[in-house]
Every structure is written in C-alpha cells, then in structure tokens.
C-alpha cells in the first residue's frame, strides 16, 4: 500500500477536530498529544508491517481508543466538553458519544467551528492564518515560519499565543451566533491571505507554497459545504483561488526559472482548475454587490479566456480594475491597472498611469513597480532607462528566483 501524499497532515486536522469535540477546546493541547501518539504508533507499526489498506481508519481507531482511555482515567479530575459531560460520565453512553465525535459529519462541523474560532477578532490576522495552518492543515510552526519568512521562534510564539486565546474560550464558535456574518468575512479574509501567501508570498519557490494554495482551496470548499456560508462572496473567493492556482504549473519555465505572467506558456495552465473557477464564479454571480473577490475572480477569468496575451480583452480588465479601485483601492491594484492600461493603450499611457499612482511611495520596496516602469520604457524604445529600472527592481528582489529574472531583464536591455 502506498502512502498517500500528506496523509498525516490531512488526518491531523480531522483528528484534532474530533478530539477537541470530546475533550473540549480548553484541552486542545491534550487533543494534539493524542494525535501525536497515534502518529508515533502508526510509524512503529507501519514501518515494519507496511501501510494498512485504510490508513485513515487505522489512525482514527487508534485515536478513538486513546480518547476512551483518557476519558476513563481522567473524568473524575477533569472537565471535558461541557455539553458532553453527562454522556462521558457513564459507561453506557461513553463509547457511542466518542464514536459520534469521529463521524464524518461531526468532523466537518467541528473543522468549520474551529476555522471560525481561529478567526477571533482579538487575534491579529497573521495569527489567525498561522492558527488555521497549524490546527486545520497540520503544518508545524517551523514549516509555517519557512513559508512566511518569519523566524521559527517568533512563529512558535505567535501560534502559542493564539492557542492560548482559543483554549481560554469555554467552547468553539457557535455557527448560529449573531456574529456569524462578521466572523464569516474574517474567515474569508484569512483564507484569502493564506492563498496569497502561497501564491504571491515573498519566500522562495518551494513546494510548500503550492501546498498553501491548495489548502486554502480545500478549506474554502469546506466553507461552501455549509449553506449559511455559501454566499456569493465565498463562491467568488473559491473561483479566484482556482483561476489563480490554475497558473501555478506555468510559473516556472522548463529551465526552472520564474516565468512572468505575460510570458507564461498558457497551454500549461490547469484546464480543470480553470473550469472549476468558471463554474464557481457563475454560482457566485448573484446578489446585489460585486465584492473585491468577484472583481479579482473576473479579472482572472478574462485572462483565462484568452489563449494569448494579445487576444486578452485588456479594455475589460481596465474596467474591472477601475471598479476594484472603488471597492478596495491599493497601490498594488493601481499598479496592475496601470499595466493593463499600457497593454491597452500603449507604453506611453502605461508609464503615465504608473507615474500617477497615488501613494506610490508605498511601492518603493516592491520590485514589480520599477519592473513595470522598465518594461514600458523598453517598449517605447528607451533601453537605458529600462535597464536602470530593471537593475533597481533586481536590487529589491525578495528571493533568488526573482533576482535572477530581473537581472536577466536588465541584461537584455543592455544588449539591445
């Protein structure tokens, strides 16, 4: 039997959800210990006997038995989930109650409640994202730190602080709470950040990055399974993630170098994800307002529809960025809008739009601002100016792959 990819990480989130249902969120650390015990045992047995036919069921059975042991040994001294207290006290109801916690539907609901709890307004956004990655996706603090280019110790502290807030609550977020709508926005924002960290993040191209994107999609899909959460904005968020993730295979070219969006081999875009993205965008195209998620998904959809850069409906893209500047203005949105204008109306207009960006000083450390200036200078024939901009961009690069790409651009300008 093969070991499926990320099996332990996947199961970790599910097992923690089932166990905190039994033990209560205040015993999160206990739930995590039981999961680690189950993994230890799996490693000891499987390494010699081989992976069983149904490894998930195997791990679940070990965790379930261990949970029964823990409850039997500690129920007089400990309080577990308050609403299960009576059921866990009696031997008649203990086993069925524990089994119920391991049912697929319970696990799904608990994961949702956990997700909402992680996005507590008292927690900074970075902490929310780190908690989701740690508890629901099974990433260790060190792994999160490397994806976020943060020190390991700082990330450990951040995760520990977040867990303290979580464990301080008597129960997980109630999905029928009056604050549901507000909290749902926070969850969407955290998932969006999680996706972006994977997609645009400053850390080097590593497999972990793509994993972050797919985890964000997985959790958004989980959200969509809940009728109250499957709102137009959530569909649009899922759509934009799919449409962006479709491009992941084309982001690195055959030589292993970064391939910028306009140069990508579009035949390598993942057609299945593109299709999924369109389907979800359709589902989300109801309701009175187009959110930033809708607009971003719509822009990605216009790109996905064009077989080449030249066939792209750049006018539509400029219009969508105009709307985006009203809904969620930012210098990066303005930068992308200026690039679209340049594609549409030529390099002179593109440069003008770039120079007119409000708050452009906030882009001064962002390598793709000078890179865009360089690109349009090159196109209008000023190779010297272009080279200087690309060199500046290279000096701002956030990882070796970006630096190599921007250096190459600068050299190409010098050669012409």
């Amino acid at each position, binding site marked *: 039997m093969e*070991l499926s990819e990320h099996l332990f*990480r996947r199961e970790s989130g599910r097992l923690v959800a089932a166990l905190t249902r039994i033990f209560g969120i205040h015993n999160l650390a206990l739930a995590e210990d039981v999961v680690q015990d189950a993994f230890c045992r*799996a*490693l000891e047995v499987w*390494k010699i006997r081989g992976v069983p036919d149904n490894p998930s069921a195997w791990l679940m059975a070990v965790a379930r038995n261990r949970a029964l042991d823990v409850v039997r040994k500690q129920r007089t001294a400990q309080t577990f989930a308050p609403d299960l207290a009576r059921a866990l006290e009696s031997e008649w109801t203990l086993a069925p109650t524990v089994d119920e916690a391991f049912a697929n539907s319970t696990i799904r609901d608990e994961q949702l409640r956990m997700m909402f709890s992680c996005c507590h307004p008292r927690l900074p956004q970075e902490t929310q994202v780190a908690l989701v990655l740690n508890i629901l996706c*099974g990433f260790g603090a060190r792994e999160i730190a490397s994806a976020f280019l943060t020190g390991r110790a700082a990330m450990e502290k951040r995760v520990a602080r977040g867990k303290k807030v979580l464990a301080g609550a008597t129960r997980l977020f109630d999905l029928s709470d009056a604050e549901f709508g507000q909290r749902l926005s926070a969850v969407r924002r955290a998932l969006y950040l999680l996706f972006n960290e994977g997609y645009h993040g400053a850390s080097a191209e590593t497999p972990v990055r793509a994993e972050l994107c797919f985890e964000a999609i997985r959790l958004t899909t989980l959200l969509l399974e809940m009728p109250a959460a499957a709102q137009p904005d959530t569909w649009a968020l899922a759509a934009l993630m799919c449409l962006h993730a479709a491009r992941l295979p084309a982001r690195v070219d055959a030589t292993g170098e970064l391939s910028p969006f306009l140069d990508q081999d579009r035949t390598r875009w993942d057609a299945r994800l593109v299709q999924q993205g369109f389907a979800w965008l359709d589902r989300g195209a109801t309701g009175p307002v187009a959110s930033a998620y809708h607009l971003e998904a719509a822009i990605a959809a216009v790109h996905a529809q064009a077989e080449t850069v030249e066939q792209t409906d750049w006018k539509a893209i400029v219009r969508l960025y105009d709307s985006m500047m009203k809904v969620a203005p930012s210098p990066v949105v303005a930068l992308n809008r200026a690039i679209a204008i340049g594609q549409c109306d030529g390099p002179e207009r593109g440069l003008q739009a770039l120079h007119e960006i409000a708050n452009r000083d906030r882009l001064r450390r962002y390598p793709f601002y000078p890179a865009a200036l360089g690109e349009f200078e090159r196109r209008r024939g000023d190779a010297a100016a272009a080279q200087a901009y690309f060199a500046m961009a290279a000096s701002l690069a956030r990882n070796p792959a970006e630096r190599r790409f921007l250096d190459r651009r600068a050299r190409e300008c010098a050669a012409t």
Partner: protein
Amino acid sequence: MTQFLYIYRIDPAARQEATSTPEAAQQRMQLWMKWMAELDAKGHLKDRGQPLEFGGKVVRGQKAVTDGPYAEAKDLVGGYSIVDASDINEAVELSHGCPVFLGGGSVEVRPVMKMDY
C-alpha cells in the same frame, strides 16, 4: 544464504522528534517504506517481522515476574525483521540505509544459527 535477524533498537524519546509535525512523520514513514521496498526488491527481505510494544513483563521464574522493560530505557527493542544475506558483512551492509539511525537508534544484526550436523 544465511538468515539474519535485524533487531531494531530505538530511543523512545527520539521517536517523539520523528513525529514532531505530521510532515516529519510522513517523511520518516516514506524513508522506511523505501528502505524496506529496496530490501524486498533485491530479494533480501525474508520476513518483514513484527513491531513490539515497549512495555511487558520480565519473568525469571514463577515468583519472579517484574514489569519491564520500561519506556524510559534508552535502547528498547522496537521490532525485528529477518533478512537473507550471503554473510554477516553483507547483512551489515544492507542495514546501512535503515532509517532507525536517524532517530539515534541501532540495528543489532544476529546470524540465525544453522541446523548443520
């Protein structure tokens, strides 16, 4: 061909490290699968063997039954396998990629005695 018993001795404290994150457990598991599969593919794996619980009883006569070994011990037998090799040198050679070493453990290689008259 002679049969050799591989006795895997592990440090229970170090195995915590191997499962410190789910991804770490996954990687360690993959190394074991790869190593076992290679032994098998080359026809050396006679019997995968069995893993052993860490605790048990030590019996030194009917009245002398004690608990043990204890999980605090540094090198507990965690399991065994049986391999086929031409001689002890080859059996040692074959153990070299064993992932047990990553956790500070060891492999005891013991020839199975032959029934020769």
